[in-house]
């Protein structure tokens, strides 16, 4: 008995060393692969800023797109993006938040409502280009809205609705039940409880979700390319029925050009787009931090 223990000890020790060595190697491999992500992000940003920075100027912001790279700018694209996003927000926020309120505060557990729920999570997985097909066929052609700001905004609204609904539901779920019970106890109706007490309490969470959804909408290219690229547009829209171009569309058009100068223009457009995204995300994070502090 004791002799066999003695003979297995060196074997155990050498195996232990191997196991420990393997453990170290595995850990370091995983670490390197994780840090690789940061490397990729760094490379991407350096690449874009180094080729696009020299194109950023006041003229670049205020000029219209042009065949001549040195005169080209993205004023119409910038204005188009602003028009689209404001219209999208005006459509998607009320509908999305209302859906979330219905599902969380009103819906009873029945077949129809669970179907709505499954349907929303499925819609979140539908590729954005399929929404583009829907927008092109339904809004542009069938409803005869044309390649307008409204068509683009409706398409993007449908695209981000699931995101807004899911985020808003989380925020509404997080409202403590005591608030609802207090309101009911004072004789408030369901409408009063939900709209005067639950909704304001959930507002910061909803806003964060909405801003993140809208920042996704700003960068979405495929759907609005399909809806809006039917017409060549060099002017900023003046109303929701006007034709439009948008930042991602402009970037796409420039990136496709063979000339090297357009490559720089595309990078310049990307910088503007990334800055817009950065600002929106900062606002979202600011709201989140502020309410976290207020609650704690």
């Amino acid at each position, binding site marked *: 008995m004791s002799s066999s223990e003695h003979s297995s000890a060196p074997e155990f020790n050498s195996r232990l060393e191997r196991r420990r060595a393997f453990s170290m190697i595995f850990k370091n491999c995983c670490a390197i692969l994780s840090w690789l992500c940061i490397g990729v992000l760094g490379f991407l940003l350096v690449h874009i800023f180094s080729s696009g920075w020299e194109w950023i100027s006041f003229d670049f912001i205020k000029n219209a797109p042009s065949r001549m790279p040195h005169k080209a700018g993205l004023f119409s694209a910038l204005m188009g993006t602003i028009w689209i996003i404001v219209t999208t927000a005006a459509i998607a926020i009320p509908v999305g938040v209302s859906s979330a309120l219905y599902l969380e505060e009103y819906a009873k557990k029945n077949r129809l409502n669970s179907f709505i729920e499954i349907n929303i999570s499925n819609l979140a997985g539908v590729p954005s280009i399929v929404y583009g*097909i829907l927008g092109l066929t339904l809004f542009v052609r069938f409803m005869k809205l044309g390649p307008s700001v409204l068509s683009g905004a409706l398409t993007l609204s449908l695209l981000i609705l699931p995101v807004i609904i899911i985020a808003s539901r989380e925020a509404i779920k997080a409202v403590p039940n005591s608030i609802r019970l207090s309101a009911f106890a004072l004789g408030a109706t369901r409408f009063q409880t939900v709209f005067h007490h639950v909704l304001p309490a959930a507002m910061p969470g909803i806003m964060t979700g909405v801003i993140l959804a809208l920042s996704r909408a700003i960068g979405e290219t495929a759907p609005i390319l399909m809806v809006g690229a039917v017409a060549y547009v060099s002017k900023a829209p003046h109303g929701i029925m006007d034709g439009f171009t948008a930042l991602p569309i402009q*970037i796409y058009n420039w990136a496709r050009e063979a000339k090297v100068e357009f490559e720089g223009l595309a990078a310049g457009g990307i910088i503007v787009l990334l800055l817009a995204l950065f600002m929106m995300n900062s606002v979202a994070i600011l709201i989140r931090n502020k309410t976290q502090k207020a609650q704690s």
Partner: protein
Amino acid sequence: MTDIVAAAFRQKTKKSKWIEEGVRWGIFLCALASVLTTFGIIFVLAKEAIPFFREVSVVDFLFGTKWNALILPRSFGVLPLLMGTILIVLGAGLIALPVGLASAIYLSEFASQRVRQTVKPVLEILAGIPTVVYGYFALTGITPILKSFNDEIPVFNALSASIVVAVMILPMVASLCDDALKAVPRSLRDGGYALGSTKTEVSLKIVVPAALSGIVASFVLAFSRAIGETMAVTLAAGGTPKMTLNPLESIQTMTAFIVQVATGDIEHGSISYHSLYAVGGLLFLITLAANLLSYKILKKYREEYE
């Protein structure tokens, strides 16, 4: 006095009942909007694909090996487009799944709080970058690097598109796997350590198997995202439908074809135009199946820990 108050109160209740019912129905209709969207998608794809399938049989469409939708002689076999998509998805999966899983293991099992707080936001930023930016990056950042290794590689190639699609789906894989690994209870890990396992052995033999359903579900979701990815492959992979599994060639995916038709000057109502809906319908069905599969995996194989 009390009578007046009571009457006013009754009137107010009556009015608020109307508001009550109105609001209930109003927001119910909003919730229905999402259902209508689904029906809208299915209706539009089906209605517009029917004229296409009147002229091209389903068998020819699904098993034909030549896609020539825009120029004569026309030929509508979807396999080259499908192969293009599969090539991109496989390439992206080969890179993103192992790297994503490895970084999830690192973040959840090895990394300190500080490292987590650096890497997680970076993953979130990567996930938030618009796809058209990735397309530009593939075309002007990755392709020149590939060309420096081998000058024969064409400007538009499947490899550089695969690489950026991998970068795009990696954050999703990493964060979903991280969630799955984190959900494994500590007691399982402690049991492993008590038996003398090293950290790697605990991670690979206990935590990963325990979280397997979540990991596989995240892989399937990532595939679904890669299949539907449009702008990066449209910009970087080219526009030549081809039956090939060579990543160094120019190909065309289903999504890139849809963009090509919708943005080109194809006559509305022609068979080429309607082929867009046939391809779009196929794309929708594939991603829907992948999403449902991921949902089923999570539901059926989820280990419940208290």
